[in-house]
């Protein structure tokens, strides 16, 4: 009854299912991408699920940023107030922490990238 081609279609359809589930039903409020913006340099993008530590050279000195288990945070900053470190872990779409004196911001955006700008 089924031809070989039908199995091919069914196979690919099943293969697509998890992707479609995540894309169409996934929780939009959880972030997926980390954007690091640095003054006078192009932005850098990382996956929120790619564990790593990143050193960013800003205006004052180096920021150390850690991505771990779907979260991101500042762990070292050359500024006086360390507000960026106090912000702690970011994980949801639209969350942002800034090391203004060093000209570095870290933000999390979700699948649907809901915000074009954050008024903070």
């Amino acid at each position, binding site marked *: 009854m089924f031809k070989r081609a039908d199995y091919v279609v069914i196979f690919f359809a099943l293969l697509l299912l998890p992707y479609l589930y995540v*894309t169409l039903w996934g929780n939009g409020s959880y972030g997926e991408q980390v954007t690091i913006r640095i*003054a006078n340099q192009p932005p850098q993008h990382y996956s929120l699920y790619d564990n790593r530590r990143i050193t960013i050279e800003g205006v004052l000195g180096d920021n150390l940023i850690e991505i771990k288990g779907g979260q991101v945070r500042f762990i070292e900053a050359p500024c006086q107030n360390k507000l960026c470190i106090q912000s702690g872990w970011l994980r949801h779409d639209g969350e942002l922490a800034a090391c203004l004196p060093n000209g570095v*911001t870290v933000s999390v955006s979700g699948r649907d990238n809901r915000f074009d700008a*954050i*008024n*903070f």
Partner: protein
Amino acid sequence: MTESTITRPAPRRLTVWGLLGALLLTLGGCTEKQPLYQQQLLALGTLIDISIYGSDETTAQTAIKEVQGQMEQLHHNWHPWQPGKLMEINRKLAAGEEAALDDEGRFLINRGMTLSQQSGNLFNPAVGGLIRLWGFHSDDWSGKQPPAAADIATQVAAHPQMSALTLEEHRLRSQNPAVTLDLGAYAKGYAVDIAIKTLRQHGINNAIVNAGGNLRLIGSKGKQPWRIGIRDPRGTGVIASLESNSDEAVITSGDYERYFEHQGQRYHHIIDPRSGYPARGVIATTVIAADGLTADAASTALFIAGPDHWYQVAQAMGIKEAMLIDEHGTVHITRALMQRIHFEQKPAPTIHLVD
């Protein structure tokens, strides 16, 4: 594979692969790269984030470079106590002399006088002495303490107000030597206006210029409006969002932008000219207006006015879309803004609608 196995089932294979291909193309369409160009600048002591939609990269880069130069010029000219135009004006006013203004200076001071009067002097760019005493312009706040109460009292008692100024053509005089101009409460709003104007001159019609809490936008992101998130004043997330595809400014003033803590008390940078101390009772205000300068001045005035008087001040300043978050987290909001804002958090905050 032999020749025959390729040719025989070809029509059906083509259909299968064609269908799969079409499906993948459709899915791919969702993540198609948008012609969005983004760049961040460090100027005016803050980060300025510029997003441009639908212009080619060379145009965007050229325009942004010009904006960068303008921002540096603004900082240099209008810094209250670094050698520049404003410092020279302040020196003359303090000496009781007449100060000559250029077109930009005349515009800024004239707008400052009008807005200060409308706000009942809550927005008061004449309190440069007080602002300097608090020292919020410095980046180093470690071990910072509030100034001596007597010094604050002296500044407040001298009643520095914009009404002491007389502006004739490009000539400015002051009847009160205590007046020291500090444009900090509306300079960034003006800066985003200038930046947008420059982008327009380069033929850019869809853009956002966001200098921290000071944002102005034009146009849209293609078929979609721009989506703006307003930061939760006590978190890292977004408290509310709104969409826009017209030319307007969205400006937020908060107690979390610049502050230090001393003996458990938070001292932020929005100083009430009546007391000489940081304004109490409010954690953030957001104002939407046609231009950044007006919205910036108004967001400061509403913050100082506080939860009981902010709406009267908004009306006096001609502001229709505004909200204030008080120290308990209650959102006080005008009906006009309520109609277009979306609260992002669950449970939604307590909302006090005013009209």
